């Protein structure tokens, strides 16, 4: 087939597919709005800071000092005090039912002991079923108890009590680079963008191609002199454009609504996004070659991609935390690389000289997926 012929045919195809997509107004709206809605929703909703911990304070002999502690706990945004009967059984039951997640057990006669400068032993029990939240909760509670103790001592005996010769303090001042306020949005929005783009693009392509297979309309195209691979690529073009539109919308929202900065080059970001869109479309293509029905495509795309992308892309759980075999697996998850690139450009202002490895890998993955997809497609349809 002559090249000019091919180009003309391809253009005709693309125009047909684009009209197709534009005519389905409902789906178009969903395709453009849904990713935006999801990024907005979860950008605001997902937080991992410790908040709203229900804590019970076991106080055998309530006095002014212990009341001060309870007030402090209740007043903090992180904790809510829940009243529980001070028996072992009641505590155990409350923990089991999830009514409390922490319990602070005070010794009797706190006031008296403080007055006499006696040692105090306080127990902090934390629900460890979620170890990460548990550690964080324990640290906060401990810190709060220590501060209360120090303040109560000072109130009673004056500030000198704290300056004992054997009390050495090394204070650690921490600064979070690239995200000084540890805004949840900055933590999660780039990951959300990657997640949503991945699933939507892959799903869309997989279903679009499989749909034609299932309903039999593919056959019309197959009778034409074009190779199946050309047909499919022509199909993917409008979706690629839609994907870029999505990227623009979502990045805009990230900046305007969440104030996630774009410290690096916007052009680079857009180019990388374009690359990634092709990656996800290729992924959808590969899925479609393995699926005879739309159900199979949906199961493979949603059922097979959703959880792995959430868990292995670095979206919520850090890649470095993954055990080695899983770290290896994460390398074939395209979203993982895109996330590094997006975070790098947006939060760190990194350029290509820093991100060239990830970019190369992503390009390589894309080429591989395209090659596999097209080869299988030609095999199946011819």
């Amino acid at each position, binding site marked *: 087939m002559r090249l000019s012929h091919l180009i003309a045919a391809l253009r005709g195809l693309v125009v047909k597919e684009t009209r197709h997509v534009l005519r389905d107004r409902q789906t178009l709206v969903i395709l453009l709005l849904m990713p935006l809605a999801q990024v907005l929703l979860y950008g605001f909703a997902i937080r991992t800071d410790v908040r709203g911990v229900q804590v019970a304070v076991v106080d055998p002999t309530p006095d002014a000092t212990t009341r001060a502690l309870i007030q402090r706990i209740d007043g903090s945004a992180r904790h809510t005090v829940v009243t529980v009967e001070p028996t072992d059984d009641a505590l155990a039951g409350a923990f089991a039912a999830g009514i409390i997640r922490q319990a602070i057990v005070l010794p009797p006669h706190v006031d008296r002991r403080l007055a006499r400068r006696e040692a105090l032993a*306080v127990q902090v029990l934390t*629900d460890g*079923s979620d170890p990460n939240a548990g550690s964080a909760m324990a640290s906060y509670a401990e810190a709060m108890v220590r501060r209360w103790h120090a303040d109560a001592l000072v109130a009673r005996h004056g500030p000198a009590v704290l300056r004992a010769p*054997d009390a050495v303090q090394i204070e650690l001042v921490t*600064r*979070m680079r690239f995200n000084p306020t540890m805004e949840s949005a900055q933590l999660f929005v780039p990951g959300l963008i990657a997640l949503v783009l991945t699933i939507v693009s892959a799903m869309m392509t997989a279903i679009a191609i499989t749909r034609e297979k299932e309903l039999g309309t593919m056959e019309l195209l197959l009778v034409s002199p074009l190779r199946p691979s050309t047909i499919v690529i022509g199909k993917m073009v409008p979706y690629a454009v839609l994907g870029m539109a999505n990227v623009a919308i979502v990045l805009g929202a990230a900046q305007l609504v969440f104030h996630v900065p774009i410290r690096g080059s916007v052009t680079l970001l857009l180019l990388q996004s374009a690359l990634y869109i092709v990656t996800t479309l290729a992924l959808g293509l590969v899925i479609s070659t393995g699926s005879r029905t739309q159900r*199979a495509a949906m199961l493979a795309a949603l*059922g097979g991609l959703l959880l792995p992308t959430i868990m292995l892309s670095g979206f*919520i759980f850090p890649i470095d*935390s993954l055990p080695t075999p899983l770290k290896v697996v994460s390398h074939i998850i395209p979203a993982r690389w895109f996330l590094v690139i997006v975070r790098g450009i947006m939060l760190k202002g990194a350029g290509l000289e820093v991100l060239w490895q990830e970019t190369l890998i992503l390009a390589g993955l894309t080429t591989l997926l395209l090659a596999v997809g097209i080869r299988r497609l030609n095999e199946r349809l011819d």
Partner: protein
Amino acid sequence: MAWRAVRALVRKEFVQVFRDPATVVQVFAIPVIQLLILSNAATFDVPRAKLLVIDEDRTPASAQIIQRLDGSGRFTVVGVQPTEAGIEQAFLDREARAVLRVPHGFARDLARDRRARVALAVDAEDGAAAGILQTAAQAIIADAAREVGGSEVTALTVSMPTLDVRGSQWFNPTRNYKHFMVPGLLVSLTSIIGLLLTSQNIVREKELGTIEQLNVTPLTRTQFLLGKLLPFWILGLAIFTIGLTVGKLAFGIPTRGPVPLVFMSAAIYLVVVLGIGLFISTIARTQQQVMFVAFFLLLLFLLLSGIFTPLESAPVWAQRIAAVNPVKYFVFIMRTVLVRGGGLAEVGPTMAGLALAGVGVMALAVRQYDKRSG
């Protein structure tokens, strides 16, 4: 009610599912494989972060601090330099995850005031990891303080009354994150497969035209929807059981509470999720539409369920949305019974709520389904 008709429908669905090898593989293999693989993923622990040290003090005291950090297993000191030069690039190139700065006069301050300060800068590109590193560093440095300070103590005069805070973990003393995540993953996987299968089922018949043949028969709407619910309910329970067994054998998840309660809850919960899928299926017109709705719902169910991020941390409006999220309640039941050892008293009300929701959703689907269009 003519149960024969319903039984015939159920049989048909089973035949269709099991006759397609691709579907069988997807329905069973996808959840099990993901459960096996992803359960290992769930941890926030970050080992051996690369640490660069700017030692402006260069005293035995600063060396001790650096030593402590290096030997802690949480950090690996990749370099010690006297100035700040090149730090920015180190962050960008990811040569260092964190940079510790021991300022000039550190040892002097310690000796004189028994108080000194060091600064840590952490690459918070990955915020979760950054938080963990911060906590780890704080703990190591606090420990180091005792050691560093202790070596310089001469005489004990009036000592500060001590505060002994004993922290301990209730449940899960080995801090096994898998015990926390596996139930959540199992719920996720069962829900994903279940919702996808039912939501796509009726729409597919609409698209292929086979639903017309069913619509002209005397089948009532209830019979029809029961015939669609039951096969996937059974499949869902099968997947759940397999997953639970895998979880027990492969990961040793605890079963502190009564396991039959877990199965009963699964049975009730499945009606809700599958019912939602069926409801979607009665409204949507193409499988493409269904796919988007299913994706939207699934993401909503999963991200606002407390599986990956704690719900208590979410803003109030998000918690309100989560209040109608069946996944959240089922995960609560699973964790309460399996990990916390709760029983009927603790999860009964939740189970009842789910049961009510199940009946409600199915009733809605029946009402929504119209054999006659227009």
